[in-house]
């Protein structure tokens, strides 16, 4: 085997470290501001979810399953799953996890949908953004934790920051694809009748791309849920932390309970968000 010559090195790691330290010293206030906004949003969601008592939340989930998916069976399933989470003793933690997920998705959509729209409008922007998105999705998720930690310290905010970065690509991609695959003649028709670019977007492109965008939102939500668990490694309270503790203490049973709670949440969130993509 030939050894790669040691003299040929590009000090990428050093460059990145340098950029990081530069960002930290010069854009400190900027990150503080972002952190503040993120925190306020997640706290608002947390307040709501922790305020609603379990005996209201469970029927609400049942109602959502029944009305949104259109099957009584789904409603019953949701109620059972939430009830089981309660019996494990993870009600509060799962509500915290849920708030984190929803707040992260909220930010991911605010960024992702406009980015997807601009990507659909410009071939050049698409060419630039695509490899970045590939990178964001294939990069091991733990890698995001380190810079997040450096920018925002420990706690919910860095966990959410990492989650947003990790979860945003699907909604960008599917918004882009959705708009690009809209019936060409429908767009032409709209233009032919004198629609402005904005009218074309809101009358034709977004409505016709809606199923695709909804699938994107669904995927983003699922990825956010997965990442939030990892985010607990840097101090976000929630079900993920329980799993982490169980691993440290080698408590298999407890680990499974916490793990199952995450799976149950995932099932409910997935079914509900997916139901939006199926409707007209």
């Amino acid at each position, binding site marked *: 085997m030939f050894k790669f010559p040691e003299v040929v090195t590009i000090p990428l790691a050093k460059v990145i470290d340098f950029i990081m330290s530069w960002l930290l010293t010069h854009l400190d206030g900027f990150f503080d501001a972002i952190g503040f906004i993120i925190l306020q949003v997640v706290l608002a969601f947390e307040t709501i979810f922790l305020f609603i008592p379990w005996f209201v939340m469970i029927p609400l989930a049942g109602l959502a399953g029944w009305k949104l998916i259109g099957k009584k069976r789904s409603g019953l399933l949701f109620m059972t799953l939430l009830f089981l989470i309660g019996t494990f003793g993870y009600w509060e933690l799962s509500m915290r996890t849920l708030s984190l997920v929803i707040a992260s998705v909220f930010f991911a959509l605010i960024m992702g949908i406009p980015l997807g729209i601009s990507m659909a409008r410009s071939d050049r922007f698409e060419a630039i953004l695509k490899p970045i998105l590939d990178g964001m999705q294939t990069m091991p998720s733990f890698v995001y934790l380190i810079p997040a930690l450096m920018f925002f310290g420990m706690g919910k905010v860095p966990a959410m920051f990492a989650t947003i970065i990790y979860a945003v690509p699907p909604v960008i991609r599917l918004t882009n694809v959705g708009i690009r695959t809209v019936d060409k003649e429908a767009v032409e028709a709209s233009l032919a009748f*004198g629609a402005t670019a904005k009218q074309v977007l809101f009358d034709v492109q977004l409505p016709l791309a809606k199923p695709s965008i909804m699938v994107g939102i669904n995927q983003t939500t699922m990825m956010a849920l997965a990442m939030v668990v990892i985010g607990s490694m840097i101090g976000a309270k929630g079900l993920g932390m329980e799993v982490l503790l169980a691993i440290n203490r080698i408590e298999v049973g407890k680990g499974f309970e916490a793990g199952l709670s995450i799976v149950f949440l995932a099932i409910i969130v997935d079914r509900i968000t997916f139901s939006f993509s199926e409707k007209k």
Partner: protein
Amino acid sequence: MSEIKTQTQEEPDTALPEINKTSQIVIKDLWKVFGRDSKRVLGKKYKDLSKDEIQEKTGCIVGLRDINLEIKKGEFYILMGLSGSGKSTLIRNLIRLVNSSSGSIEINGKNLTKMKQEELIEFRRQTYGMVFQHYGLLPHQTVLDNAAYGLKVRGIVKETRYEKASKVLETVGLKGWENYYPGSLSGGMQQRVGLARALVNDPEILLMDEPFSGLDPLIKRQMQDELIELQDKLQKTIIFVTHDLHEALKLGDRIAILRNGEVVQVGTPEEIVTQPADGYIQEFIRDASPAKVITARSIMEPAKILLYAWEGPKTALTLLRANKRRGAFIVDKSHKLLGVAQEDKLEKLLIKPGKVEIIPKSALRQVTSVSPDTILEDIFSIIIKNPYPVPVVDENNKLLGVVTSDQIFESISPMEGEDNV
């Protein structure tokens, strides 16, 4: 272009190269080149090469090459060609869904190619209605909302646009379907929605991009007939793209045939069929039925013998016998057709006591007549039932000429057809 042959016999003004006063749309030296850095194709180096050579040398595809057309107000104008001939590109250029590479398009004296974005949007709203091959409807909106779309983009309030849209939907025969979604309608009905949407603005110019290509033959024919009827009422300028020759011949006042992005021939349906400009068009029209385009006017002849009502039965009978005929058309003093006088009936008149001065109407056989614009196909059924030539009369029933079965056969027999027209 040397290849373009514009017929001048019937409509001499269409062939004039300079701008015509009645022309609503004037297309001049229009080029469209697709591909990277397409402007260089328009330079001297490449401009005169063939489409294939240009593609080989520059990688650019010539979509339209040096198009010059003039379309008059109220004209039903067909752009015909096979796929890849540039007909769809051309119609999209007329509303700038595709932007031309060079040349100009003037509509009502305004240069479309020079318009800025806002101006263009306003111009589209004022001037056009467009119908698409695959309808281009919005599936998430009702038929009524779809039909009202052109009004919605202009910011017209809901009540007004619904009121107008309902009226137009009624015109296209979709009353009662307002609250359905396009997806639940058949293809023919969806295209009616498309047509309603195009008409709701009451546009001056109607652009139709293969609107009936996706429909099955029966529905297609029905829609064509309805469009003709509608056009009789509306008198819009219609630019209609099709690859179907029969459709072109049936609908068009004039037809421009395109090949490889160039105009090969412009003419009326009859001119196209009887005087194809080159082998390509001859090939194109080979299975076109001349019976659908040749009119009574172009093949009628003066009647061989004509009887005059005031001459009395005796003269008529003498004339018939002299010509060895058993019957002939008979007209009054203002040359109006009265019917056919038959030998046996005339004889009976003479046998009757008392002198008959004028041949009475009761002694005449009534015959079906046609107008000069009747196409051969419609004359066939009359001539089959009738032993006489078919009389051609104008709107005052004045006899213009007759069409015999011999003339019909001559006119539709392939190659010799040219000599007879």
